[in-house]
């Protein structure tokens, strides 16, 4: 076994361990540790990805020395490694982009706590990505929830605590359902390792036994994860949670945490139940319909919103709808599109959140549109970045959003019954996206009348601008040379089977 195969385990452990270390360090050091850890994990993931691409097959790593079905396992394929790398990049950029806001929003004494939470979050995300064990997944889902909740409420104002409570409640409902579904699955198959469950499920299906409990179990797990990833209509907690937390938290939450759950769902679909079996159930139709509704209603709510952060948050609801629509198509192409959209949305949404904070900072901290008038002239980089993000969301070629739209549409065409519905909703949703994003873009480039904030300028420009630049580049890179990424996703999904 190659040394590189230890990397997944190392990266989980590293981030988990660094979290504990951070608690005794002063804030500055914690920050440094946090950065270093993220970079290290990212590097490891990159090396792992290269290694996997060169070997062309996934591997399974035993935790301890117990073979299946007793031991706990980690599994790494191209998709997992790629995802881990991507999560690290986004997380680093989000942290860097939001760093300047932290002192203002979080009391000094809690800074190292903040880094603990981020590290914990990273470790739980990595665990979700790599784990091959269902119950481990559950445990890390909970860890993820708790750290995410911490990230929301680290900014101690009434809104965030309330948002955190709501977030917790919905998450707990979700994880309760997930756990219950998982228990039923365990009951049916007698296994907790994904590969073993899949074999048993295949046998059960072949034998025609326990069909209903099986479906119930799958449905419970799906609904649980849907709630946690804020699929419409389970999105009530989302706008407040994303809208009022500190900016890095919002960026991370919207682009990574929900994506972690979605990735877990993909793993369950492929590794636990089996893609074909999953597609033969009616669950995908339900996901499809909810996805479509999410695309429309999320955007509609965003249009009505008068607060830029909440608007971006609602836009997430719509984008998550896209992803579930891809699931709901029940084809490989749809799944590829969804995974690509996970990446594209993560890159874009965090960019938008961070750009938005730059805009609100130069508008007296207000997020109301009326105060944002002309903000792009006061903070040029934020304006450019917000515009780029918006264009990507609307699906202008050259940006990543266009590719995911392209992939979704191409996938939709191949699905006989769902083609028209998805194409039309795709069109409408683009129109709606255009409406609320372009409204904002025009607003920030307007100078009609004297704004009370016209003299305000932005501090700490350099780091912030570089971060935004990287985000834009990431976006454009995804948009221009998408082919390698798509190939990687296809390869990774093939390894899942």
């Amino acid at each position, binding site marked *: 076994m190659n040394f590189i195969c230890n990397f997944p385990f190392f990266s989980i452990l590293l981030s988990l361990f660094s979290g504990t270390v951070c608690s005794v360090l002063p804030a500055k050091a914690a920050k440094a540790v946090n950065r270093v850890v993220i970079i290290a994990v990212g590097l490891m993931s990159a090396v792992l990805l290269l290694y996997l691409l060169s070997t062309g097959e996934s591997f399974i790593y035993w935790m301890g020395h117990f073979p299946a079905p007793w031991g706990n396992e980690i599994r790494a394929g191209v998709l997992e490694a790629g995802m881990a790398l991507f999560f690290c990049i986004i997380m680093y950029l989000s942290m860097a982009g939001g760093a300047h806001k932290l002192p203002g929003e979080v009391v000094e004494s809690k800074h190292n706590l903040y880094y603990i939470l981020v590290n914990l979050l990273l470790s739980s995300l990595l665990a979700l990505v790599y784990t091959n064990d269902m119950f481990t997944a559950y*445990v890390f889902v909970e860890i993820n929830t708790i750290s995410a*909740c911490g990230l929301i409420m680290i900014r101690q104002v*009434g809104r965030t*605590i309330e948002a955190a409570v709501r977030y917790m409640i919905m998450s*707990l*409902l979700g994880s309760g*359902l997930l*756990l*219950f579904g998982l*228990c039923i699955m365990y009951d049916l198959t007698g296994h907790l390792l994904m590969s073993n469950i899949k074999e048993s499920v295949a046998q059960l299906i072949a034998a025609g036994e326990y069909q209903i409990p099986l479906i119930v179990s799958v449905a419970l797990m799906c609904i649980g994860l849907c709630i946690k990833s804020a699929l419409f209509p389970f999105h009530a907690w989302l706008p407040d949670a994303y809208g009022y937390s500190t900016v890095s938290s919002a960026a991370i939450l919207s682009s990574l945490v929900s994506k972690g759950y979605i990735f877990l769902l993909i793993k369950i679909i492929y590794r636990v139940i089996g893609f074909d079996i999953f597609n033969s159930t009616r669950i995908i139709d339900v996901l499809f319909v909810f996805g479509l509704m999410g695309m429309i209603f999320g955007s509609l709510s965003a249009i009505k919103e008068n607060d830029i952060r909440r608007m971006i948050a609602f836009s997430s609801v719509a984008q998550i709808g896209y992803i579930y629509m891809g699931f709901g198509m029940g084809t490989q192409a749809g799944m590829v599109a969804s995974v690509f959209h996970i990446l594209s949305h993560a890159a874009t949404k965090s960019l938008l959140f961070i750009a938005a904070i730059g805009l609100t900072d130069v508008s007296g901290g207000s997020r109301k549109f009326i105060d944002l008038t002309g903000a792009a002239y006061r903070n040029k980089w934020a304006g450019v970045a917000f515009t780029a993000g918006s264009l990507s969301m609307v699906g202008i070629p050259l940006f990543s959003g266009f590719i995911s739209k392209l992939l979704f549409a191409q996938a939709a065409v191949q699905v006989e019954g769902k083609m028209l519905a998805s194409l039309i909703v795709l069109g409408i949703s683009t129109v709606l996206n255009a409406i609320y994003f372009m409204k904002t873009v025009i607003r920030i480039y307007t100078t009609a009348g004297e704004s009370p904030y016209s003299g305000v300028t932005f501090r700490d420009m350099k780091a912030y601008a570089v971060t935004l630049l990287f985000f834009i580049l990431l976006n454009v890179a995804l948009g221009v040379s998408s082919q390698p990424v798509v190939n990687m996703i296809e390869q990774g999904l093939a390894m899942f089977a």
Partner: protein
Amino acid sequence: MGPNLFTNYGEAVSAVLFCIGFTNLLLQTNLIKKIIGLNIMDSAIYLFLAEKGYIAGRVAPIVVNGVTSTEAYINPIPSGLVLTGIVVSVSVTALMLSLTIRLYTRYHTLNLDEISMQLKKEGK
């Protein structure tokens, strides 16, 4: 259906409990009651796991009399899962309770809707 339900009364009860807990967590406006609902829900799942792991006439998998045959003990994995789950749910409950306290000290109420109302009034 009827006889099956009766035979698997353990599962049935846990399902019912789960539903009760779930509904409470979802619909109660009082935060404490929500947390209680959460605990009921979690306990229902542990009950379910324990029920599944129990084999009639065997004892818990703790070696006390030097009996090492697996035949003597019930399946240990569900028990392990329950223990892990309890740890998780305890920590979650603790977090929820701490959040509740914070909210209560700020807004002097446990009613989540009222808190939302007050937040709206603050207009932030």
